[in-house]
């Protein structure tokens, strides 16, 4: 089951420098262990018994047909793949490399932001009343 899922994951999220392929991250077992994801992912895999015999182009075509045939389960598979992929340290490092996004936890550091400038309200503050008074 996990070998088939590994192939499937790399079709969904192929490698592209600096991003690793999803199938190379060892996230297949974690996906199958997550209660929200396990059932739908297994259902999609069951609908793709010959995936490992297909070349990449045919495999992608088969996936698209499966997505059309069982959209809800396939959507959950995609959420599962993205969820474990985009929280994997190697992927977060790649995002940091490409965008500067800080790959660590948001807390306790948070982010610096410029304070709000009240002068920005000059135009809206000068308007007459904008609400209806039913009294």
């Amino acid at each position, binding site marked *: 089951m996990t070998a088939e899922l590994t192939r499937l994951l790399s079709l969904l999220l*192929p490698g*592209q420098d600096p991003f690793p392929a999803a199938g190379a991250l060892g996230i297949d077992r974690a996906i199958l262990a997550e209660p929200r994801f396990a059932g739908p992912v297994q259902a999609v895999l069951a609908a793709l018994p010959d995936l490992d015999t297909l070349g990449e182009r045919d495999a992608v075509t088969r996936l698209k047909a499966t997505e059309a045939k069982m959209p809800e389960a396939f959507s959950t598979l995609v959420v599962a793949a*993205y969820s474990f992929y985009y929280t994997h340290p190697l992927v977060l490092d790649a995002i940091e490399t490409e965008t500067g*996004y800080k790959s660590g936890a*948001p807390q306790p550091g948070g982010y610096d932001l410029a304070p709000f400038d009240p002068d920005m309200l000059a135009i809206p503050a000068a308007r007459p009343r904008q609400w*209806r008074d*039913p009294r």
Partner: protein
Amino acid sequence: MPSLPSTEAPEADDVVIVGAGAGGAAMAWRLARAGISVTCLEQGGWVDPDDTPSKHPAWELARQTTHHPNPNTRMNGWDYPVEQSDAAIKPLMYNAVGGSTLHWGAHFPRFRPSDFRARSLDGVADDWPLDYWDLAPYYEENDRIMGVSGIHGDPGNPPREPRQTSPLPIGEGGRRMAAAFDRLGWHWWVSDAAINSTPYGEGWKGAGRQGAGRLACNHCGPCDVGCPVQARASTDITYWPLALSAGATLLTEARVFGVEADASGRVTGVAFHDARGNARRIKAQIVVLAANGVGTARLLLLSNLGNRSGLVGRRLMHHPTGMATGVFAERMDGFRGPFATSILCQHFYEGNATRGFARGFQMQLVRSDAPLGTAVGVYLPRVPWGAAHHDRFLAVFGKTASLTVTTEDLPREDNRVVLDDSLTDRMGVPAPKMIYSLDDNTRRMIAFGLQRAREAFEEAGAIEVLTQDLVTEAGFHLMGTARMGEDPERSVTDSWNRAHDHPNLLIADGSVFVTAGALNPTPTIQALSPRAADALIRDRRDVRGAA
């Protein structure tokens, strides 16, 4: 967490409140402060503010699993399932001390005066049996307890006292959109948010936080998974410390499954399952239901109470929301800052028949998502899988801002909460089912709003604008299922939240809303609740003398 209170339930109390969220907490504080003995039963437990996924690098995974806002997805043992197959908008809620304020974005607008007069002003729905000015002093007091950042002086709303802390930073996306609104001549204002921009309030002193108080927001982003600095208000760190200090009793993991009444129609108490699964009963002179617009309707239906009008569970309202997202060439870095609060455009809020729909909508600027949220599609449509995935992800990540088109949902009796025929909670108690669809008025309003949002993003210089006609995972405002009114044949409670059919049964959550407005309901729930408590306090002899 041994320092957090979880007390044994008494056998009887003056007042029993069901639910420790926004409305229940405010009710408990107000009554306890007046010396009335109160016990609150909450089916969830305490959540330590320090115990948040945002302290871990893989925090976004929690949003899709353990901290998902939909109880059917989250599958937390404190929750009950909600049958949602016939619901165009899915239920979002949280069951714990603090209720759904533990998972909210803390956008904190008040209803406008016109929201209480939809029938008189626009000829649709119904008027409320009270008005904005009845609630105004309660809004102010609630602001002081929750702590609101913002700035007073908005000509879009009635005057109010200075906010407790200054506005939160609005970020680059906020600056862009504010300037665009100015050029378009559309009114906007910085959002009121129940989030500290500077330290305010004592917060929860348990769980190792003795004396730390509620600190300033550090702009980490995901308010919805918890706030370890307690900058974002939730009732577990605002009202509950006050209520407990005043003598209220709070019993956690107590799952109420019925309200009991005698032959005369007076309620006598509630039945609940305790943390060990034992069925128990607590007697009360007054019962207050504050279990949200789904949970309260469920309990009334399970108990066969309060339904002379036939409206219990009916007139379910949400805030149907469309979403427009602008993609910019430059970085917006909208993952910095509280995700739901920045600026608010109410230019199209008041009803205007020339627009082709009744009532109006707000456009709330929300910031952009972190990596997983961007890829999986919350504000944006999902980034497609396959060979082009990474290029598309990099084209949009951190470069977006989004506007909600949050509309007023007119009440319809066929939108409703019922008891499901087969689904139950883990104790075998029938689960609620939501039956809900959008009407044509709402669809026209969303379409109009998305066009306006597109105009705003184009004015702001977006290189691409993407829209979603309806955000389905948006059932966080649950309203209308036990509406208030003067006529017992056409409403469930009176204007003081008392059930017409049962003078000692109150409802203190969004169930009582007559109309939904197009603004976040929590400040209004928290204004209505202590107002209802004040009526009980005035009638205190009834509380004491009805044994």
